[in-house]
């Protein structure tokens, strides 16, 4: 741990803090230990850390209302929390420090107190989010000897005092042209095999362009919005119906705009990427079907949230109901009714993970006669109830 700490300090003025399982400070390599510890505890990180370690053993990246951050890594033995190692405090981009400096200068403070705060602010390190994630992964390895990926990292943002004002990159599209092109290829080809490993390597490399003037939350949201647009176009090239791609784009745009935290934005970004890749993968897998059956599948996909009658499908394709049923079964191996139900359950899974719609709302939206019928159908398909799945 000492070597790790010294190596980190070759690059950044960052300290390592060693807490016990109750988050009481045991030691630190910070020379002004008791004073700087105050910055780790400006807001209620202690409760967040204790709560997190009940059920998780992977690192937690914490942000408070003034965007001061730290990384917590957990040491457990036989499932029991032993120690917590914290790296910090730091900021993740210049917007946060500049915004904070402006706020400090606007406060009605004596010159001495204000200057102390501003000069101290300038001593705190500014580290890119990608580097923070690398440190989290490395520290986790140093503590546990386990290798994890960026997708294993967790986030906590203390938002109880202020509106969202986080900063940093979620998806980087500047100075990483090759990585971006690779990601778009993965979407275009529905390459789910390489998707996960590329996600872990690519996303946080380099430095993003400036997509907003001084507003860090806008900066981050704009980055994700750019990615949604790029991915949806790549998915269309991969065979996804433009109308579906546009609907998904609208959906994710709205979710991004409604976001209030880095944790939510990260989750949406990951879901969005996986969603587009999966959809193209499924379309390509269905390439063996005849054109009318592919069209039938796409029609079903487009109308999952409306009643779908066999007659309607048959009319759409210009077939009789009997002929369509037989043809669908012979090519796909599934009855139409079962296929539609399966797709609705897939959509339900998506809505459960990515929205805050109630069970009743999801059930109604997906045309189930009742919530209990929806629950039962879901449980038969997935082995767990929708509520359990959402957890």
């Amino acid at each position: 741990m000492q070597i790790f700490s010294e190596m980190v300090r070759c690059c950044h003025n960052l300290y390592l803090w060693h807490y016990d399982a109750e988050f009481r400070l045991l030691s630190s390599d910070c020379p002004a230990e008791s004073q700087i510890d105050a910055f780790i505890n400006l807001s209620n990180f202690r409760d967040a850390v204790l709560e997190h370690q009940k059920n998780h053993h992977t690192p937690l990246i914490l942000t408070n209302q003034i965007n001061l951050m730290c990384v917590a890594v957990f040491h457990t033995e036989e499932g029991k929390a032993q120690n917590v190692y914290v790296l910090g405090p730091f900021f993740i981009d210049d917007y946060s420090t500049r915004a904070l400096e402006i706020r400090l200068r606007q406060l009605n403070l004596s010159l001495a107190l204000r200057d102390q705060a501003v000069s101290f602010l300038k001593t705190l390190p500014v580290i890119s989010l990608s580097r923070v994630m690398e440190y989290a992964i490395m520290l986790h390895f140093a503590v546990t000897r386990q290798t994890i990926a960026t997708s294993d990292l967790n986030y906590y943002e203390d938002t109880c005092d202020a509106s969202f004002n986080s900063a940093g990159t979620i998806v980087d599209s500047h100075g990483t042209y090759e990585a971006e092109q690779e990601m778009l290829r993965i979407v275009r080809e529905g390459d789910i095999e390489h998707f996960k490993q590329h996600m872990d390597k690519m996303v946080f490399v380099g430095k993003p362009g400036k997509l907003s003037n001084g507003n860090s939350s806008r900066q981050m949201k704009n980055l994700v919005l750019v990615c949604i647009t790029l991915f949806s176009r790549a998915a269309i090239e991969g065979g996804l119906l433009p109308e579906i791609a546009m609907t998904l784009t609208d959906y994710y745009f709205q979710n991004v705009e409604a976001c209030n935290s880095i944790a939510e934005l990260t989750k949406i970004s990951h879901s969005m990427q996986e969603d587009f890749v999966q959809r193209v993968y499924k379309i390509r897998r269905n390439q063996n079907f005849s054109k009318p059956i592919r069209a039938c599948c796409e029609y079903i996909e487009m109308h999952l949230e409306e009643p779908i009658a066999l007659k309607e499908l048959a009319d759409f394709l210009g077939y009789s109901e009997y002929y369509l049923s037989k043809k669908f079964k012979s090519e796909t191996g599934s009855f139409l009714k079962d296929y539609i139900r399966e797709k609705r359950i897939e959509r339900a899974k998506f809505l459960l993970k990515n929205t805050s719609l109630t069970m009743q709302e999801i059930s109604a939206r997906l045309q189930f006669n009742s919530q209990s019928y929806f629950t039962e159908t879901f449980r038969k398909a997935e082995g767990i109830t929708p509520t359990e799945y959402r957890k």
Partner: protein
Amino acid sequence: MKLKQGIDYGKFFAAVTSCQGDVYFETIENDRLNLKSILSRFVFASAVSQQLGKVNGVIVCMVKEDYQHLQNFLEGEK
């Protein structure tokens, strides 16, 4: 009332958060920091770090009962 030296500031801030009313740190230069605000805590902690743990100021609680709540961190009796 004055703050004791060498206290655990994390626990102090947690105790302030659970106080009923606002808790101010008032300096001899007439600064008045509401320690329920994260920004004010940052200013306060900056002063503490640069004055090597000594801070020239007093803690003022708007609700009298809160002094009891903070007694482990304060010098003297209220």
